[in-house]
């Protein structure tokens, strides 16, 4: 007999029994179906004189012995709500009856029973970016992705995904929908690429075009920096820094270029094997140009110095033959030769080509030595002309004499100033004295200091004369004894 027929039978039966209490289920209706987790509202109508509670039952059959109580509700409420996945319904077969019965009353109540149909299985679609992943559900192989498994019973399902060359992935889902989609992810086994930089310069570092730039921000000690780079330190200064990168098996290209400096680019191929570590030391040597130097004197007569970090490094012939490699930037040089003018020049290197520089050294001249003694700096420190003409000993003697005489002038002048001040003080006291003793005493002191001041003045004039004479002597010396042309 069909469901509908069963229903009609019940209605007739109840009616034939003369069920006088008109308790009527208004919702749901016969044949209504609900999803598993859908809200079921059971509504009823009852005459107002009916008081108390009603019991609500469900049953898979119409036998009273199969009735299972759901709830007991005040009849006046008129409705009750239950989820279709209510625990009591869970073990049903999908087709149940709802019964409302007024409790404690021997009288039967006219009821209507509405059967409910509920779904308890659903479909699961398995997909993955990785092709042909084998999928097992609760230990049973079900297929390879992509595929759909139908009529999967609701509940907790253990899913295992596996493929050769990938790590197995086992996980659990709670299946409760009619249609579920599961995207399978599998990870590949990885190895470790260890990047190391000893020289701490900012660089654009890429591994298969994925950036792993080091952003050097300052002395930090052992701490994590940008993007996973870590300092390796043995003291307060970092000696290098490194980064560990997890990569899947395969070949990778490590490329590095300096960001703010002129450096050669770095490229290295590396093969990553799972569960092992490969180290790549990134080295970015500075770009260099080549300097070729030519002078009008033979090398053995020259002293050539290259200024590096504030120090003048003497260059040997082997340093510059065939050329001198130089980093990018401006380089200063000094070239000296006895009896020749010192030559200073600069070279700006900005490419890797060869830079040829020709420099002519000029001979020192007597007129220059004389001018140096007559004018600046000889006017301040005589003997500079002698130093220029490389008569070092005589130059130093003139300078020493000059310094001694200058000191003598300074000392004499100081004494003159002091004594004349004292003399003026005593002179004032003498002029304002009103007793013989005060007059005599201050006069004597005034006279004494005045004489000393005058002596100091004479001495100063003597020293000044000596100073001038020394200065003139340097002229004479430069004119006749400089050994210059």
């Amino acid at each position, binding site marked *: 007999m069909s469901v509908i027929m069963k229903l009609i039978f019940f209605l007739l039966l109840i009616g034939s029994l003369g069920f006088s209490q008109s308790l009527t289920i208004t919702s749901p209706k016969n044949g209504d179906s609900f999803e598993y987790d859908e809200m079921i509202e059971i509504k009823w109508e009852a005459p107002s004189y009916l008081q108390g509670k009603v019991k609500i039952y469900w049953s898979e059959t119409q036998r009273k012995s199969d009735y299972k109580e759901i709830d007991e509700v005040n009849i006046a409420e008129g409705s009750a709500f239950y989820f279709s996945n209510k625990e009591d319904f869970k073990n049903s077969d999908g087709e149940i009856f709802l019964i409302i019965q007024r409790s404690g009353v021997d009288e039967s109540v006219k009821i209507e029973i509405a059967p409910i149909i509920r779904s308890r299985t659903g479909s699961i679609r398995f997909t993955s970016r990785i092709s042909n992943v084998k999928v097992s559900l609760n230990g049973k192989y079900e297929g390879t992705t992509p595929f759909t498994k139908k009529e999967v019973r609701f509940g907790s399902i253990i899913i295992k995904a596996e493929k050769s060359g990938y790590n197995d992935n086992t996980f659990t889902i709670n299946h409760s929908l009619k249609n579920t989609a599961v995207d399978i992810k599998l990870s590949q086994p990885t190895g470790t690429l260890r990047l190391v930089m000893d020289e701490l310069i900012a660089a654009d570092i890429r591994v298969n075009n994925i950036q792993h730039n080091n952003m050097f921000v300052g002395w930090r000690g052992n701490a994590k920096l940008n993007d996973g780079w870590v300092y390796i330190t043995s003291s307060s200064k970092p000696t290098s820094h490194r980064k560990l990168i997890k990569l899947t098996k395969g070949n990778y290209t490590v490329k590095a270029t300096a960001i703010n400096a002129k450096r050669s680019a770095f490229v290295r191929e590396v093969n990553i094997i799972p569960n092992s570590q490969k180290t790549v030391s990134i080295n970015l040597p500075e770009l260099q140009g080549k300097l070729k130097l030519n002078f009008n004197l033979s090398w053995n007569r020259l002293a050539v110095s290259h200024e590096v970090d504030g120090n003048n490094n003497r260059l040997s012939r082997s340093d510059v033959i065939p050329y001198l490699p130089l980093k990018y930037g401006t380089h200063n040089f000094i070239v000296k030769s006895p009896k020749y003018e010192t030559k200073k020049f600069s070279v700006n290197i900005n490419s890797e080509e060869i830079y040829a520089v020709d420099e002519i050294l000029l001979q020192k001249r007597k007129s220059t030595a004389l001018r140096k003694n007559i004018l600046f700096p000889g006017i301040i420190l005589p003997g500079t002309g002698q130093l220029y003409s490389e008569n070092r000993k005589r130059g130093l003697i003139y300078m020493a004499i000059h310094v001694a005489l200058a000191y003598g002038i300074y000392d004499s002048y100081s004494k003159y100033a002091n004594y004349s001040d004292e003399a003026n003080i005593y002179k004032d006291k003498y002029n304002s004295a009103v007793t013989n003793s005060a007059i005599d005493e201050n006069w004597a002191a005034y006279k004494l200091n005045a004489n000393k001041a005058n002596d*100091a003045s004479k001495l100063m004039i003597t020293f000044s004369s000596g100073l001038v004479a020394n200065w003139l002597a340097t002229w004479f010396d430069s004119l006749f004894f400089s050994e210059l042309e």
Partner: protein
Amino acid sequence: MLRKIFVVAFISLSCDEVVIEPTNPLDPNNPDYIEPQINILYPTDNATINSSSITFTWEGNRDGMLFRYAVNLDTGGNSGEWSDWSHDKSVQVHYFDEGLNSFSAQSKYTTGDSSSISNIFFEVDAVEGPSLLFKPRAQRVELNERFFFNVIAEEVDSLTATSFTLKYNPDELIIGTVTKGSFFEAASNMIFHHDINQLAGEITIITALLGGEIPMVTGTGSLAEIEVFAKSFSEAKIEFDGSETFRGPSNNIITIKFAIGGLVMQ
């Protein structure tokens, strides 16, 4: 560089020789030194002063000078001694005797250099005769010192006789002897009588010319000399009691204009 040259030259040339020369005006070695000087401003030399109290003024040639003075220095008159050095440029002296007096002054620098002494002479004519007065009018004595007063007839005309009584404090003064003065001494015949009442402190003197070719005197002269001893006091006086008389040869009364006693100071 030129600046450096100038610096050296400047230093060298800016050291002027320190000139040593005495410039203190008080230093005798100063070529411009002026010795201390004194100039008595008042009274002028040979002036006649109509008062027995005179204010003398003087000046020096520099500020800050010291001065001293003396009255009747060589005459042993009222003072006869130098005052202490001070910066005062004036002094008032009282009780000058009639007649010629002198005032001396001297200045000095604080260094001790002093000026020469400047003297002036002046005539004191404070009392108009005929009068009786003491001479000296005032004198300063020591305790128990012996000193003298002369009773002077001042500017009398034809005086023949006189009598007067002097009063004094016997606790302050002791009168020794009273002798006749020189005014009547030239006469061949004269009387001089005196009476000393030491307890009462009175001296009565009567003196007259008796006959002779010239039984009268004219002018100023001493009628009596009184010897006095000083007891302890600060000031003592011998004064006329108001009974003094002058008579002429005809026993005519000559009006006495002033009767000025003597002052003793210790």
